């Protein structure tokens, strides 16, 4: 404690926590007697720091200077022995002063005999006299006195505080009194500053400018402020000026009058510290939270001597081991997450081993001083401020007490025994509190000892239980609550409700009296707790699994260089095993982030990939087995093995020293055939799953040149370097800077300088120029026909080249929009027809990615069972001739739809679409259309209106809806001729194709998926002998003569055209401007566009999309 305490004892006896100096007031009084002993007073005051009580008397003394010190001392004792410290000897008025004088004189005479009986008697007499006088006063006199005192008339003798005689309410401050000013000071220095103020006041008292403040005090409960009594703010500032630690700049505030009194009110703390009681240390770098036992209560002093189980670091850092303890401790605290040394009784031998023997000083009585602290019987004994002790609700745990119990000294055993009984008692009290109706309890003492039952009712100290077992089964018994305890049986699943194992759950293994041992569910270790802290639990201990956002076995980043895995969660901290195998205790706020290693791959000792959840074994070292929890930087692997008890079974190993327990190679081989692996929909993770990684760029936007259109970087150009969800990392062209920005704020810069939405493709003009080259648009890839928004531009080349050969199956028809949406464009349909599930689905199909987009979707889909085919078919339930061919059609169709269908589709305005192929697909996405039998029923009227006279086609050839079908088809056909790039869905019955039926090569596609005819005819080639028109609502069918010679009727939607396969082959153009024309392939048809020219005019070469071409059988055949 501070050095003031010796003087303060009297004042602080009841826990008072303030220091009052009344320097100035004294000064005023003294002024009246200044004539003779000015200097002496000053001198005295200096010595007289705290003896406020006596000072008033001092002031009135008129004595010899030389004798002063001695006399003072004696007198003090004498007076003190008769007076309550509060009952100050008063000096109300002049007569008293004289009397006091006599007292002084008398005492002086009797200096050597302070408690002389004579003196005592005289004192009494004097006091009585004084009282009498006071009582004799009339009311007027008192009133007058009071006015004098409080009327602000300073000349009058001032009241100096006899609390016994003046009613409290009159002492309350008023506006006439000096104000109380609050001054901000450095926290912790309040008391020092008050004393500095006092000293300053004393020093300056007789200078030219004495301090004008009246008093100053601080309250310990209000840290960072002191209160100064003064008439004006200026006085306070004057007084505090120059004192270190006073923050005058923070202002000096007047305390409202009504609050002044409460500032000085002392709330009595009912603190009883008794010998041997258990307390807890509130805040301490080393012992914070530890249990301690009071050894010297301290009798109301602020310090309490306690003993604790020491925490001595047995592995002292070399350099600090010899330094002084305070410095060392500071350092230890600074280390983040460093575990404080465990509690262990002081053992001279061990400490001597860890430190030098010199550092241990033995004293008499078995005391040992080590690093400035005293150890006795293995405990460390410390003086701790009472404020730093938790006295209530200590709840010592079994472990803690057993720690104290393990002290070996025999002398203390009795004491401890008593303590143990206390503990048992207190824990029993607590046990009553935790009893609940329904608890299984047993009676362990008293008459009914041994009976067990279920708690029925608790009323105060009496518990009614329903007994169970033997002869008193079902009887209700009233038992004192203290005699029963909770009863647990082996194998019960319990949960800890209180103490350091709070929220642990486990299965009871053994029960011994009121101590229950259970096997923790999480750590697989046995834990022993008091039965009172347990409850039957239904749930598994998930309670402690999560704190904040972090969970057990999470990989967390602690700082830039440290990651670790949480292996134990405690009440509000984690134990983390870092990558170096060190155990750290961290609080949630010390974790900077959780890392996701689910996609991280490391390679094991054999070079195989190693991921989370693999079961592996160490190849070297202890050959531990475990399941991979996380990998970090492809180098460390965090493993978990329940059988390892250390660190909750978590350990860290180098990935390179692990080998998989499951033979992996085979699994991979088999995986090739496993469709579920290829099926994104079945992969749970969708496209983000690692399985999809190989199939294309992670994000098609990466590498795109963009411009920022919003935010602080508006107008900046840059390149997307990485994307994550809807944010993109953009490397700005200027400033050499990477920014993270919302994708919505970015616009793609087209080569022509236009700004486009990211998901848009290059603008039409650009596209059209590229169409014939079939590559190098903004994406550097084949142009996307699907970019249907700007269809008009895209059409142009077609018009020039379109011969009518429909060749929808063109192998290598890379232009099929089918892959374009998937592989190249960020789902162009998202904007236009993104609502339609078909498109979304389409963008997910593996097909587009299958061969990097070069392969037309047709082939892929026709080979592999395509999940979407079915869905698509379903959508087109009333299907059209070609509806079911392949799912790819769907893209194709809608993508190429042109203005003909403008008003038809829900998305028509965005995508003018027309397609004989696409009809059902267009409609498929929109539920309404799909629901309508006859795919284009709804559309036809429009066409009818548009081209009412266009009925060139015999209705019979056309599929779909009866009468309206014709105009529709014709209209569609007429318009479609302009720009179609793929076949219409009813191409087979196109008037331009029908005449060629006996020659065109067709094949069945999609039958496999739809299980049509058992899929046996899949890819069977043949020619159409007759196309039968079916009434609306029925499947269109055609009779096909297969190459095998078989002839049968086939549902038209499975019939697909066979694209030309070699140079010189005759083809029919089934779409576009040249629809119906028969041409000859002039170049090997392996590109999306095929160069064709008519036989009659070989020079007039057209480029026709392969899909529009249908290979023809030789005329003779």
């Amino acid at each position, binding site marked *: 404690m501070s050095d003031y305490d010796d003087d303060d004892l009297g004042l602080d006896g009841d826990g008072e926590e303030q220091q009052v100096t009344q320097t100035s007031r004294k000064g005023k009084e003294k002024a009246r007697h200044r004539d003779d002993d000015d200097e002496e007073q000053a001198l005295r005051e200096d010595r007289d720091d705290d003896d406020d009580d006596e000072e008033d008397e001092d002031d009135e003394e008129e004595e010899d200077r030389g004798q002063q010190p001695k006399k003072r001392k004696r007198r003090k004792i004498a007076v003190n022995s008769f007076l309550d410290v509060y009952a100050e000897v008063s000096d109300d008025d002049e007569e008293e002063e004289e009397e006091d004088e006599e007292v002084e004189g008398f005492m002086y005479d009797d200096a050597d005999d302070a408690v002389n009986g004579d003196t005592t008697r005289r004192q009494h007499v004097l006091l009585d006299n004084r009282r009498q006088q006071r009582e004799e006063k009339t009311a007027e006199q008192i009133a007058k006195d009071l006015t004098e005192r409080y009327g602000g008339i300073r000349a009058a003798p001032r009241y100096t505080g006899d609390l016994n005689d003046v009613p409290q309410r009159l002492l309350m401050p008023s506006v006439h009194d000096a104000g109380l000013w609050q001054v901000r000071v450095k926290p912790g220095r309040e008391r020092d500053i008050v004393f500095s103020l006092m000293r300053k006041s004393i020093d300056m008292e007789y200078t030219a400018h004495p301090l004008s403040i009246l008093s100053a005090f601080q309250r310990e409960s209000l840290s960072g402020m002191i209160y100064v009594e003064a008439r004006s703010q200026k006085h306070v500032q004057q007084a505090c000026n120059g004192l270190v630690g006073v923050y005058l700049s923070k202002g000096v505030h007047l305390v409202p009058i009504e609050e002044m009194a409460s500032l000085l009110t002392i709330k009595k703390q009912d603190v009883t510290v008794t010998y041997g009681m258990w307390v807890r240390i509130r805040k301490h770098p080393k012992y914070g939270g530890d249990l301690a036992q009071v050894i010297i209560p301290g009798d109301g002093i602020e310090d309490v001597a306690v003993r604790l189980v020491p925490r001595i670091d047995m592995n002292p850092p070399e350099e600090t081991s010899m330094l002084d303890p305070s410095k060392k401790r500071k350092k230890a605290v600074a280390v983040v997450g460093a575990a404080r040394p465990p509690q262990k009784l002081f053992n001279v031998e061990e400490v001597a081993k860890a430190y030098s023997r010199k550092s241990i000083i033995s004293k008499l009585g078995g005391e040992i001083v080590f690093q400035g602290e005293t150890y006795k019987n293995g405990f460390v004994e410390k003086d701790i401020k009472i404020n730093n002790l938790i006295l209530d609700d200590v709840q010592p745990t079994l472990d803690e007490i057993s720690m104290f119990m393990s002290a070996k000294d025999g002398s203390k055993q009795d004491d401890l025994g008593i303590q143990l009984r206390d503990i048992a008692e207190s824990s029993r009290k607590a046990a009553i509190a935790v009893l609940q109706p329904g608890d299984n309890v047993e009676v362990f003492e008293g008459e009914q000892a041994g009976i067990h039952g279920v708690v029925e009712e608790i009323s105060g100290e009496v518990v009614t239980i329903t007994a169970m077992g033997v002869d008193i089964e079902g009887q209700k018994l009233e038992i004192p609550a203290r005699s029963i305890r909770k009863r647990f049986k*082996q194998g*019960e699943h319990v949960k800890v409700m209180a103490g350091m194992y709070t929220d642990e759950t486990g299965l009871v293994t053994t029960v011994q009296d009121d101590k229950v041992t259970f096997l923790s569910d999480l750590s697989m*270790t046995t834990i022993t707790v008091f039965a009172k802290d347990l409850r039957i639990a239904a749930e*598994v201990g998930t309670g402690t699994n999560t704190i904040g956002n972090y969970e057990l076995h999470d990989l967390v980043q602690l700082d830039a260089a440290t990651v670790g895995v949480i292996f134990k969660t405690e009440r509000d901290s984690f134990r983390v095993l870092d990558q170096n195998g060190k155990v750290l205790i961290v609080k949630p706020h010390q974790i900077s982030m959780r890392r996701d290693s689910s996609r991280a791959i490391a390679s094991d000792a054999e070079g195989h990939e190693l991921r989370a959840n693999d079961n592996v074994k160490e190849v070297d070292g202890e050959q531990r087995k475990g399941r991979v929890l996380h990998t970090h930087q492809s180098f460390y692997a965090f493993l978990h093995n329940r059988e390892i008890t250390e660190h909750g079974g978590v350990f860290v190993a180098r990935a390179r020293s692990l080998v998989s327990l499951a033979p992996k190679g085979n699994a991979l081989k088999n995986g090739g055939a496993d469709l579920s692996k290829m099926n994104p929909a079945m992969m749970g993770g969708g496209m983000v799953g690692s399985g999809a990684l190989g199939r294309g760029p992670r994000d098609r936007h990466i590498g795109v040149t963009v411009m920022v259109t919003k935010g602080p970087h508006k107008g900046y150009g840059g390149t997307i370097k990485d994307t994550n969800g809807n944010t993109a990392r953009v490397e700005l062209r200027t400033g050499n800077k990477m920014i993270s920005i919302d994708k919505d704020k970015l616009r793609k810069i087209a080569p022509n300088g236009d700004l486009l939405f990211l998901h848009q493709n290059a603008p039409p003009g650009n596209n059209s120029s590229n169409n014939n080259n079939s590559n190098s648009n903004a994406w550097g890839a084949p142009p996307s026909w699907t970019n249907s928004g700007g269809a008009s531009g895209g059409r142009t080349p077609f018009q020039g080249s379109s011969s009518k050969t429909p060749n929808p199956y063109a192998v290598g028809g890379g232009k099929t929009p089918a892959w374009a949406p998937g592989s190249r464009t960020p789902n162009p349909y998202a904007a236009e027809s993104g609502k339609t599930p078909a498109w979304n689905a389409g963008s997910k199909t593996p097909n587009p990615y299958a061969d990097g987009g070069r392969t037309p979707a047709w082939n892929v889909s026709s080979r592999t*069972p395509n999940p979407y085919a079915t869905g698509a078919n379903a959508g087109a339930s009333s299907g059209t001739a070609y509806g079911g061919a392949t799912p790819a059609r769907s893209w194709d169709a809608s993508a190429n739809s042109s203005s003909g269908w403008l008003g038809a589709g829900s998305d028509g305005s965005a995508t003018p679409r027309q397609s004989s192929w696409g009809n059902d697909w267009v409609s498929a996405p929109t539920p309404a259309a799909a629901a309508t039998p006859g795919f284009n029923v709804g559309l036809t009227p429009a066409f009818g209106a548009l081209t009412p006279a266009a009925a060139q086609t015999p209705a019979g050839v056309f599929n779909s809806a009866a009468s309206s079908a014709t105009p529709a088809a014709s209209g569609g056909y007429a318009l479609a001729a302009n720009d179609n790039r793929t076949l219409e869905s009813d191409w087979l019955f196109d008037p331009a194709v029908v005449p060629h039926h006996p020659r065109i090569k067709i094949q069945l596609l999609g039958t496999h998926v739809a299980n049509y005819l058992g899929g046996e005819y899949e890819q069977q080639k043949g020619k159409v002998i007759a196309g039968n028109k079916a009434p609306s609502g029925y499947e269109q069918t055609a009779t096909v003569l297969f190459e095998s010679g078989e002839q049968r009727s086939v549902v038209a939607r499975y019939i697909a055209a066979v694209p030309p396969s070699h140079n010189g082959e005759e083809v029919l153009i089934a779409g576009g401007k040249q629809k119906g024309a028969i041409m000859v392939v002039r170049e090997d048809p392996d590109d999306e566009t095929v160069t064709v020219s008519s036989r009659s005019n070989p020079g007039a070469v057209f480029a026709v999309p392969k899909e529009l071409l249908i290979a023809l059988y030789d005329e003779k055949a």
Partner: protein
Amino acid sequence: MFFIKELTHTILLHPSYFGPRMESYLESKLYADVEGTCSGQFGFIISVVSVLDIGKGMVLSGSGQAEFVARYRAIVFKPFKGEVMDGVVRNVSKMGIFADVGPLNVFCAAALLQPDLKFDPNSNPPSYSSEDQIIEKGSKVRLKVVGTRVDATDIFGIVSMKEDHLGVLEE
């Protein structure tokens, strides 16, 4: 205890499997899905004995997947309190021993071992030994279940050997 139990399992089948060999696929998926799993209610599903009915697939709107509710008959294993089982010791520590009873993990606390068995931490592998028997990793033991913890997907048992006729099985 082992039971033969009729159970159901819901299989979601991706449209890509709709086809001729769908049933066989469903069956193999059923085996793969349920065998070796544990449901708290029924215990460990050891083996599917027969598939009673693979169910009619119902195509779910939205995903296009078909849902089959397959009924099958399986051998299940569920431990009960008081049941005596044989197991193989997997791990021996100061706290007690962990053992495997087939798919079931059990723990026998040191206090629940026969009283004369003492832990010998210095032996390799660590073991509990008495004059006439020794329990170490790999020992076959007979145990009695004193309690189980049943989760949704796992069962854990506390066992005792502190009774007659329990303990190490002689080879």
